[in-house]
């Protein structure tokens, strides 16, 4: 099981994923919780795991701080996830497809997104995003609990 916070905390709300990863890590030490700046580094980290929860900032046009969850299951179709939203070298959908092409995808992928407001260079989350870190973190913990209870 892996929780990966994607993003860069020096790109304002792009730091939402790392903030949630830290929140989860403080409350559930047995889960591997990582901050990953470059999605390609998920390959290797999530190979063949039962569950990978990816937390990232989103730019979908929703209200800033909106928390969304997408359960991709076995990640058979990731086209709807769209393209890159920050300066990550390779975007998450491509990395998911690459993991499948290489034969070691995670068995289940859940993406938790926090709608960002401000992605300019700088530290600190927008107030709405800061508030949403707890909600997103609790959602991640819930997903993990449910997965554990089903195991």
């Amino acid at each position, binding site marked *: 099981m892996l929780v990966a916070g994607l993003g*860069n905390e020096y790109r304002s709300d792009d730091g939402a994923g790392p903030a949630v990863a830290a929140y989860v890590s403080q409350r559930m030490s047995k889960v591997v919780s990582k901050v*990953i*700046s*470059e999605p390609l*580094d998920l390959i290797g980290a999530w190979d063949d795991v039962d569950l990978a929860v990816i937390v990232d900032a989103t730019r979908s046009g929703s209200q800033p701080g909106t928390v969304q969850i997408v359960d991709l299951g076995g990640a058979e179709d990731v086209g709807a996830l769209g393209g890159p939203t920050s*300066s990550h070298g390779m975007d998450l959908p491509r990395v998911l497809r690459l993991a499948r*092409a*290489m034969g070691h995808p995670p068995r289940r992928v859940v993406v938790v997104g926090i709608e960002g407001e401000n992605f300019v*260079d*700088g530290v600190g989350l927008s107030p709405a995003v800061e508030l949403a870190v707890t909600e997103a973190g609790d959602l991640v913990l819930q997903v993990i609990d449910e997965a554990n209870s089903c195991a």
Partner: protein
Amino acid sequence: MTHQRPADSRTVHVEGLARVEGEGSLLVEVRDGMVETVELEIFEPPRFFEAFLQGRRHTEPPDITARICGICPVAYQTSSCLAIEDACGVSVTDQITALRRLLYCGEWIQSHALHIHFLHAPDFFGCQDAVELAGLDLAAVQRGLEIKKVGNHLMEAVGGRAVHPVNVRVGGFYRAPSREELGALVEPLRRALDASLASAQWVAGFEFPEIEIEYQFVSLRHPDYYPIESGRIVSSGGLDVDAKGISDLVVEDHVARSNALHARLGGKDMYLTGPLSRYALNYGQLSPLARETAVAAGLGEVCNNPFKSITVRAVELVYACEEALRIIEAYEPPDPPAVAVPGRAGIGHGASEAPRGLLFHSYELDSDGLILSARIVPPTSQNLLCMEDDLRRVAQANLSMPDEELGWLCEQTVRNYDPCISCATHFLDVTVDRR
């Protein structure tokens, strides 16, 4: 994405330059069959960091500037450490320098493996991305990933983390890894070296567009080694200066269309930094195996074809693996792992070779060691004018191509530079406008 307009006013509009780090835009205007204008639109985060650093303590730049880029944080850390140590009149020990070079090898291995296999090679197969390439040549993609992982492990062992290392400080490191910790990397590095040799052979077989450009090459030169973490700055035009010299010589002009500054030597000459420059100016400093690899790949002692930069990177990948093995074999943990660097009033400069080219920093400190001003000049900004010039030549030579094909070639031309767009720009939108 590509759009077409009528023949008298044709526009190729590529929505996104994929496989570069970030976003940005490019406009190519063609008038009466001649390329009239090439403009790259750039937004430049380092400029924010320069302001952000003002008032910070002299010990903070390695941690702060490392966050400018997830692809080349060691370059930012090293150049900032060198500049601060210069300002404070401190030199580090040979052991600390060797450990810096080892960490930097990790970054070169990571970055070059990523660019060669995942970002650049797909162009030569007509693939949109590495996922498509994996369908054609899975072994090559897997090999690239394995090499990159070894770079990650090296970064973790020396820097504490694979991305944005936390073990670097002004004056050295917080902790020196043990010989045993580094010894565990020997076998993986040997495998990475073998894999890099295979990749060099692989890329040598690609079909390259025929173009030769007489660049003014600029890179570091070290008396003993192929340049990575230190050296003087030299050029194919006879330049030979230290980090202060290059800082004084490079004049950056603001261009209204762009957030980026355009760097010129002496305020007038464009110049090239990066693998082609390092290679041309330091061929003799490569290891015998790296030189053999270059010869086998069909390279001469100078490479003027920007599309063959992927081959030069593969040679440098071989070198970085070998060099990491050499440093580990001779490794003596620095004790203490850092020298003291008391803050003082002064101005300092530092330069190192990021995977994609020369990166130099300058800082002015007050008597308490607080930063009064900072200047960060990343390689992608220095290469902007050459990128535009390459694009002008490539577009002009290939105007007979359909818009979509020409747009693709323009994207590839930019990717030759492995531009670190989070350092120098957001990169999107290639527009070829023909009237």
